[in-house]
């Protein structure tokens, strides 16, 4: 057994570190540290910096402009990105739709869509969930009816993250009602500018409209925007999902936040003449989190080791999703704890880009409760933690 990096891997780590130090704009780093959201323009700008370096899509095969890295190199890269707080490219194009296009798209579709995703010229969003199709995604109803060279789409999607920024949406749509629900679903790419599409923002508990409802009213979509075969969409979407369950533990980001908690605790008065870093129950909780993070990190490394000898990621990776998200949520509670009274003010505008007013509370303490509220999503989306536990009990334990 051996968890050490080789000399080449250590050199690679150094290279990544230097690149991020020099090329991840200091201005964005400050914003991330202060809990301020990066704007669409800033995210795209950063992704284009990665693109110029050739590192925009570590998971893509080299033939499409990926890096050709080993699993360990990808891990090193993700770790360094997380430690410095550099956002991973928005996943919807790079991580979600692109692999489907590569695996099942036509050559024409590959040429048309992949370069723009790689260069961050086009922003994608994910149109899977519907009001009545959440965990039971296969029960989705948004219908696409073939009419000559086009599909006519009617229905509604919901929870579209960053739909307001998107140029294109990839959708699961119903193309056959007469068969088992999984067998009548197709994978369709839709230009958001097509007539008949309307977006309605949904404001979440943190005061930010991060998601949207999307309505389709007789939306005419060229039939050549269909991926692969009609009624095979569910298979495509599922194959993708099992490949996406790596790098989901958030260990690097967790480490960074843990360090931030320690720094913050050292600067927070306990009210009795000391700081919160001297507070026994706070220290105990901090230690427990750090230990949990180590157990998670080594679980991830074990998954990674299996991957690098060619095994496909198994359902065990559900562990990473469950533990990673619940750990992140516990850290949110710790930030709330530390902020005390200072996280009570509800001032979301203070953490939007371009805020000019007089800030309330010390530092970004008023962001702590907002993040706590917002991150309840972590255990709900991407396959809720209940669904992940179902996967473990069925697929791993055979129950």
């Amino acid at each position, binding site marked *: 057994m051996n968890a050490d990096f080789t000399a080449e891997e250590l050199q690679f780590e150094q290279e990544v570190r230097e690149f991020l130090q020099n090329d991840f704009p200091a201005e964005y780093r400050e914003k991330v540290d202060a809990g301020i959201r990066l704007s669409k323009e800033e995210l795209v700008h950063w992704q284009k910096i990665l693109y110029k370096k050739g590192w925009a899509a570590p998971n893509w095969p080299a033939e499409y402009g990926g890096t050709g890295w080993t699993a360990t190199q990808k891990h090193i890269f993700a770790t360094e990105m997380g430690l410095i707080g550099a956002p991973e490219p928005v996943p919807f194009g790079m991580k979600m739709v692109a692999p489907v296009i590569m695996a099942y798209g036509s050559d024409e579709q590959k040429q048309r869509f992949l370069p723009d995703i790689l260069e961050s010229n086009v922003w994608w969003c994910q149109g899977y*969930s519907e009001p*009545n199709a*959440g*965990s*039971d995604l296969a*029960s989705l109803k948004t219908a696409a009816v073939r009419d000559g060279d086009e599909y006519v789409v009617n229905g509604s999607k*919901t*929870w579209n993250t960053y739909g307001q920024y998107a140029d294109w949406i990839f959708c699961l749509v119903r193309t056959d009602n007469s068969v088992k629900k999984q067998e009548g679903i197709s994978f369709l790419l839709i230009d958001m500018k097509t007539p008949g599409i309307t977006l309605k923002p*949904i*404001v*979440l*508990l943190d*005061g930010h409209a991060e998601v949207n409802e999307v309505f389709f009213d007789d939306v005419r979509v060229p039939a050549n925007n269909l991926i692969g075969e009609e009624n095979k969409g569910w298979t495509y979407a599922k194959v993708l999902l099992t490949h996406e369950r790596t790098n989901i533990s958030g260990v690097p980001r967790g480490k960074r936040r843990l360090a931030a908690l320690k720094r913050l605790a050292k600067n*927070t*008065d*306990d*009210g*009795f*003449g000391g700081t919160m870093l001297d*507070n026994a*129950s*706070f220290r105990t909780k901090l230690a427990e989190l750090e230990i949990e993070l180590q157990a998670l990190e080594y679980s991830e490394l074990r998954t990674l080791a299996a991957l690098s000898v060619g095994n496909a990621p198994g359902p065990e990776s559900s562990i990473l999703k469950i533990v990673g998200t619940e750990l992140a*949520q516990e850290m949110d*509670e710790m930030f*709330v*704890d530390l902020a*005390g*009274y*200072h*996280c*009570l*003010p*509800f*001032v979301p505008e203070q953490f939007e880009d371009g805020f000019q007013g*007089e800030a*309330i*509370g*010390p530092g970004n303490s008023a962001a702590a*409760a907002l993040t*706590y*509220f*917002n991150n*309840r*999503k972590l*255990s*709900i*989306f991407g396959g*809720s*933690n*209940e669904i992940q*536990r*179902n996967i473990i009990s069925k697929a791993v334990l055979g129950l």
Partner: protein
Amino acid sequence: MDFSNTEEQQMLQESVQKFVYKSYDFDTRNKIIATEKGFSDENWELFAELGWLTVPFQEEDGGFGGSAVDLVVMMEEFGKAMLVEPFVATTVLAGGLISEQGSAQQKAELLPKIMEGKLQLACAYAEPGSRFNLANIKTSAVADGDNIVLNGSKTAVLNGSNAEVLLVVARESGAATDTTGVSVFMVDATSAGVSIQAFANVDGKKSAEITLKDVSVSATARLGEAGSALSALTAVVDRATLAVSAEAVGAMEAMLHKTVEYSKTRKQFGTAIGTFQALQHRMADMFIECQLARSIAIMAAMKLDGGEDATEKSKSVSAAKSRIGKAINKVGQEAIQIHGGIAMTEELDVGHLFKLVTAAEIMFGNTDYHTERFASL
């Protein structure tokens, strides 16, 4: 032994329920929060008419009797409906402080106005570095002839932006965390040198950060004797702590109810999600938490109303706040999780209940603080 409500308590409870049913649905509440003032004057007048504003006060002061059990009964109902009117700030905290610490003359002048709904107050005790330690007061009060000059910053002042009179806790002598040397001064909110930064808290209630720069008040603005206010402040904050704990108990009961109802109607995989045993057990645990939370709130209220000494009373309040804080995390987070995405939106009330209990967990000292206080008393 009898844990049933008295007839009076029952009437009080029904009176709040009736008001909420008629005039305080979720949309109405949202509209009230959206106003600049952040609460409804009309409601406040009605509360006075209904006699609710007298509940925290002793009979000899013209009040309803000041029983902690009455307060708990009322606050639970307030919590279920998420009332944002400044009941705790004006009557329990500020009114309580005047009643505990004020002279006969000060009480006679101010308490009737509070009970008639004609005066809004706020109590400015917490400071940026004080965390939850009530004795940690750096705001200074220095004599200047017949006047006192106040300097310092106050944080988390509930109702601070709507109060006509601020009760400012300040230090006249001693070091920052000494238990003596602390006084309370009545300060007109419009006085020169007072600056108020207003905002709404995550639970929709109005609050403020306040700075005092060379604010001069007459020595007669001091409540009671110089340097003697800390034990009164402690008793009053204990009572307010119990009030928000009871409010959280009500809000948790509402969350449990809404979650169970939702799980019976929301269908996934062809069946109501409430039929999944994975969720059933967790709702059963939420129910257990709600019951324990309610029990300990009642325990603390009975001890406050009973003959125990001051330390024992404080200890029971800390026990309640600590245990209810634990329930808040569990019940609040499960309510969101079991609802799924829909609970993440501003449009559904359950998320607002979650925000209310999150704020309640912090108000007047969070769970860890009260666990430690319980151990130290």
